């Protein structure tokens, strides 16, 4: 959990960064654990051969796993999940085994009691050698509304 807790509006200013939170590195067991917990049993996330047959070099994470990490980061940034009013993400690239997921965010605006933040999760790692990926890429990007007391 985060040491800095932004639990009231007076602690927040537009433009303020929320601080990096790093999850992973993603292991195949993490994909399996998320598949079991979430019910997303698409074999493309667990079965190496199946993934290859679809044209992927190996298995990759279901988008909702890094999205779950980003929700985790939001909860820790603002002192718990109870203030979250909206959370939206768009997936921009896949995350691969051994990637770390680096979450970050920034306060965009404050209107009334609602703090709007931009958030992103970057995958960081070598990725499958066949893909020759950049070491760090934005895997998901989004925004959230947090309702805080004065």
């Amino acid at each position: 959990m985060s040491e800095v807790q932004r639990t009231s509006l007076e602690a927040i200013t537009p433009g303020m960064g929320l601080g990096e939170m790093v999850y992973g590195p993603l292991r195949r067991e993490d994909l399996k654990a998320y598949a079991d917990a979430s019910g997303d049993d698409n074999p493309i996330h667990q079965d190496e051969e199946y993934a290859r047959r679809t044209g992927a070099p190996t298995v990759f994470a279901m988008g909702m796993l890094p999205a779950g990490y980003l929700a985790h980061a939001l909860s820790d940034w603002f002192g718990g999940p109870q203030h979250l009013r909206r959370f939206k993400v768009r997936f921009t690239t896949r995350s691969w085994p051994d990637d770390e997921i680096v979450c970050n965010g920034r306060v965009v605006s404050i209107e009334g009691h609602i703090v709007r933040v931009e958030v992103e999760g970057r995958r960081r790692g070598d990725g499958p050698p066949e893909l020759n990926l950049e070491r760090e890429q934005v895997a998901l990007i989004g925004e959230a509304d947090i309702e805080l007391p004065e």
Partner: protein
Amino acid sequence: MAEDELVFDLPVELDHVQEFARAVGEDNPVFFDAEVAEQHGFPNVVAPPTFTTTQILQVSREERERRLGANLDYGRVLHGEQEFLYKRLPVTGETLKGRMRISKDFTKEGKRGGSMRFVTYESVFTDEAGDEVLTARYTLIETAKDVG
């Protein structure tokens, strides 16, 4: 004939919430321990914000397709976007009622000439008193057949 709306139950059970919380790396005790959750003003252990994606355990992709009839080719489908609107978070011991429908279905031309179809499944979850808890919007993108 496709149905307009698919209604299902989503039980919020302690073991499942804890398992899901561990799977997204959670360490905040409000997701594991009822006493701590109560100290933070929750009536019981809280489900993580993305927990309702477990709706797939109640309504399989096949059932969703058969009953809502988006007719997607899953060999070309990606999860494009996800949005949640919260009144509050679910807590263990309750069973939410989900109402799922296709809220958006449109096609747009892609940058490389192929078209992309966006289909959004919106699930509105209410509690046992009938009050709204949260809305989840799950957007799939079906890519064009022959764009490389």
